[in-house]
C-alpha cells in the first residue's frame, strides 16, 4: 500500500479512533485540495513544455505532507474538541464504572423499596410483593441486573469512543474495568427477595448457585464478546482494488 495514498491515510486515521464521517470529510477536502492544485499547475504550465508532467505531480498525495504528521495533526485537533478526547482516563475509566455502580444501585434500591412496602397497595407494590412468588430471587436479580448495567456501561463506552477520537486501547480498557466492577457488584451485593426482604446483603463468600455465578460472569462474557471480536468497534475499510 502506498504510504501517501488515500487508502492508507484512511486506514491510519480510522486506526487512531477517528469517526468515519470525520475521516471521509478530511479525505474529500484533501482530494479537492489536490485537484485545485493540479488545475492551477495545469493553467500555469499550459504554455510551457513539461506542463503535463507538473499536473501529474500535483495529484501525488505526498504533496499534502508526511502521512504520519497529517495523521498526528488530525488526531490531535479532533481530540482537542471533545471532552472524552481531552480526558480519556476520566471518560473511559471513571464514567462507565460510576454508571455501573449507579445503575446497579438504582435497580437494587427499586427492588428493595418495592418489596419492603407491599402494604401501600399501589399497583407497583402489589407487583413487587408478588415478585418472590413469581420466582424473582436475589440470584436471579443478579442475572438481570448484571445484564442491564453491563449493557448500559458498554453502550456508554461505545458512545464515548465513537465521539472521542481515542484509540481502541481506551475502549478495551474501559470494558475490562467495567467488567471488574460489575463482577464485584454481582457477586457481593444481593438484594434478598423472599426470606428477609428490605435490605441489601453483602456476601463475603463465593457464589453458591449457578444463577449467581452466571450473574457474576455475565459482565465478563459481554466484555469478552465485545472486545475480542471487535463487534462494536468501527472496522477499518477494506482495501480498495481499483
Amino acid at each position, binding site marked *: 500500500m502506498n504510504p501517501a495514498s488515500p487508502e492508507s491515510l484512511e486506514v491510519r486515521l480510522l486506526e487512531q479512533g477517528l469517526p468515519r464521517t*470525520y475521516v471521509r*470529510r*478530511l479525505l*474529500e*477536502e*484533501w*482530494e*479537492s*485540495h489536490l*485537484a*485545485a*492544485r493540479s488545475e492551477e499547475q495545469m493553467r500555469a504550465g499550459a504554455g510551457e513544455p513539461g506542463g503535463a508532467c507538473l499536473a501529474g505531480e500535483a495529484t501525488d498525495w505526498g*504533496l*499534502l*505532507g*508526511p502521512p504520519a*504528521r*497529517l495523521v498526528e*495533526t*488530525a488526531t*490531535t*485537533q*479532533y481530540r*482537542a*474538541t471533545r471532552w472524552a478526547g481531552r480526558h480519556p482516563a476520566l471518560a473511559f475509566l471513571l464514567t462507565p464504572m460510576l454508571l455501573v455502580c449507579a445503575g446497579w444501585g438504582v435497580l437494587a434500591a427499586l427492588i428493595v423499596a418495592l418489596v419492603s412496602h407491599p402494604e401501600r397497595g399501589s399497583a407497583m407494590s402489589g407487583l413487587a410483593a408478588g415478585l418472590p412468588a413469581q420466582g424473582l430471587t436475589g440470584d436471579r436479580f443478579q442475572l438481570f441486573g448484571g445484564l442491564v448495567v453491563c449493557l448500559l456501561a458498554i453502550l456508554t463506552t461505545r458512545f464515548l469512543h465513537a465521539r472521542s477520537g481515542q484509540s481502541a486501547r481506551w475502549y478495551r480498557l474501559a470494558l475490562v474495568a467495567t467488567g471488574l466492577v460489575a463482577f464485584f457488584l454481582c457477586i457481593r451485593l444481593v438484594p434478598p427477595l423472599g426470606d428477609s426482604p428490605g435490605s441489601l446483603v453483602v456476601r463475603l463468600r463465593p457464589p453458591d448457585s449457578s444463577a449467581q455465578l452466571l450473574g457474576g460472569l455475565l459482565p465478563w462474557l459481554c466484555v469478552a464478546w465485545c472486545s475480542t471480536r471487535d463487534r462494536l468497534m468501527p472496522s477499518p475499510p477494506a482495501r480498495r482494488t481499483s
Partner: protein
Amino acid sequence: MSSQQASRGDFINGVPELLILALLDRESMHGYQLIRAIVEGTEARLDFPEGSVYPVLHRLEREGLLASVPELVGGRKRFTYSITRRGRQKLEASEERWKSVVAAVDQILRGRVGDEPGIA
C-alpha cells in the same frame, strides 16, 4: 518553499489559528485558497504540511469560530469557510496577545543587542 527560509515548527502554538482567522476576516475562502494565501502572505517562510491546515479548520469550525458551506465543483465537494462573530472576537484577543508577546520578545532581543560590546 525554500528550506533556508522556512523553519520547521513555526506553524504551531496558536499561529495557524491566528493566520486562518485573520485571512478569513478579509474574505471567505476554501481550503486551497487559504493555504495559497498563507504561503504568499508569509513569502513561504513558514513550513507546514499543506494537508495539516484542514484539521485545524475543522477544529475552529467545531469551536464555532468558523462556518463552512459545502459546494459541488467539478463533481467534487468543496467547503468555503467564513469567520463568525465569535471568531472575530477570538481574532481580536489573539491579535492582542500576539502583539504583546512579540513586543516582549523584541524588547529582550533589542536589549541583548545593545549589551554587546562594539554595538551602539
